[in-house]
């Protein structure tokens, strides 16, 4: 398996692998391989035997269901740095949803059989993984509490940051995909507190004309909003 150091770090920063040591990770990923997708394409169908799970190294994956008319309903969007389909692997069953990779995506494929064989044969490894998931759960719970505990100003800031390309730290111009009134309702504030929030964000270097936002310093805004 050929992963560059950045990609290895991504894998080691997923819920399942976070507390495992390097030799254990290497053994678990012995048969893993990378796949790249220049165009969007179907990765698997609902009901296919779940023979591998995945870590998104770049890009994103949509998990979707099909309506009777054949329309897609996107159930989950899996972002860079997240793993998916591991629950299906542990069930030794089928994929419960369809998956589509978006163009420009790079996936680490981890075949189920050798992975599970390794987990079964190394004593204590399953418990260690459960420990890893438990630790991850705490992290997620804290993140949820942080999000729920934020002021409207911070929520607005976070929404803007979520639209910034990953790794962006300095000046950024954003064209919002929605009108300001919609943005207020999206972040859950009245139009009045939205205007107040915008005014307060100006002090943090955010200006806005119509649907165009200019963030002078993304990193500073990130800190102001208490984002990681």
């Amino acid at each position: 398996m050929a992963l560059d150091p950045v990609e290895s770090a991504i894998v080691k920063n997923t819920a399942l692998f976070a507390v495992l040591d390097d030799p254990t990770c290497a053994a678990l990923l012995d048969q893993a391989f990378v796949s790249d997708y220049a165009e969007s394409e179907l990765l698997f169908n609902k009901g296919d035997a779940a023979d591998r799970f995945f870590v998104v190294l770049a890009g994103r994956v949509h998990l979707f269901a099909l309506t009777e008319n054949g329309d897609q309903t996107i159930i989950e969007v899996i972002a860079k740095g997240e793993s998916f389909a591991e629950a299906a692997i542990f069930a030794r069953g089928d994929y419960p949803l369809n998956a589509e990779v978006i163009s420009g995506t790079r996936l680490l494929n981890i075949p189920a059989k050798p992975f599970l064989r390794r987990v079964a044969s190394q004593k204590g490894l399953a418990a260690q993984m459960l420990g890893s998931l438990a630790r991850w759960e705490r992290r997620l719970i804290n993140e949820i509490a942080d999000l729920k505990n934020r002021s409207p100003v911070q929520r607005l800031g976070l929404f803007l940051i979520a639209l910034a390309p990953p790794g962006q730290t300095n000046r950024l111009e954003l064209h919002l995909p929605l009108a300001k009134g919609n943005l207020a309702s999206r972040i859950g504030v009245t139009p009045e507190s939205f205007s107040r929030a915008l005014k307060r964000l100006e002090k943090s270097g955010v200006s806005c004309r119509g649907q165009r936002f200019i963030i002078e310093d993304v990193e500073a805004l990130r800190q102001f909003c208490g984002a990681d």
Partner: protein
Amino acid sequence: MAPTHVTVFSRDSLPEIFLTPMFAGLANTDVEALLRGSRVEVFGDRQLLFSERDEAKDLFLMLDGHVEIFIRQGRRRIVVEVAKKLSILGESALFSDGRHPHWARSVGHAKVLTIPAAPIIEAMDQNFDLALRMLRTQSIRLRGLVEQISRLKLKSTAQRLAGFLLGLTDKNEGPVSVRFPYDKRLAAEALGMTAESLSRALTRLAMIGVDSRSENMVFIPDLRALQQFVSDEGG
């Protein structure tokens, strides 16, 4: 706080447990061994099942009612989620430092199967299948939390409320009436909004035909339309 009512568990009375990923498809004898010493406990309104930092000795499989999971940040109490029937609580503590990372308190009432952890931990060493079940249960739980985070970041209050309403029915299409399973204030807290935002969100949903009625009932004329509303980029 002590539960108001405790009975010894008997497997025959609880076919529900086989619906959870943890116990589905297990042989009766295995289940009996795993549930050794389990008891059914009934909690009234606002009784603590456990507190943060409490030593975790049991797992809790929810049989009925609701339990709010919350943590404290400074003086604020923040509801992370409200667990319902067939949720399993308390298992993550068993594999980390052995202490609960949050509070769990009944809402209205809660009936839980309290399962001593020791026989399960012991069995896991010998029984790889059981370890896989635990891994699966935890993976599903984490996926749910990750989803909640992305909804909090990117979905409007009306979309979050719509998603909550969709979760109250097993149906996928057509019209349906659902009822808020607990008071709207708690629903708002769990969804990360104020009670005022929740009523504004209900007004917003009324524009696509969702009708709030008396006694916390909500009529959804078209489930598909509501699903579409939740997955739309705008909102």
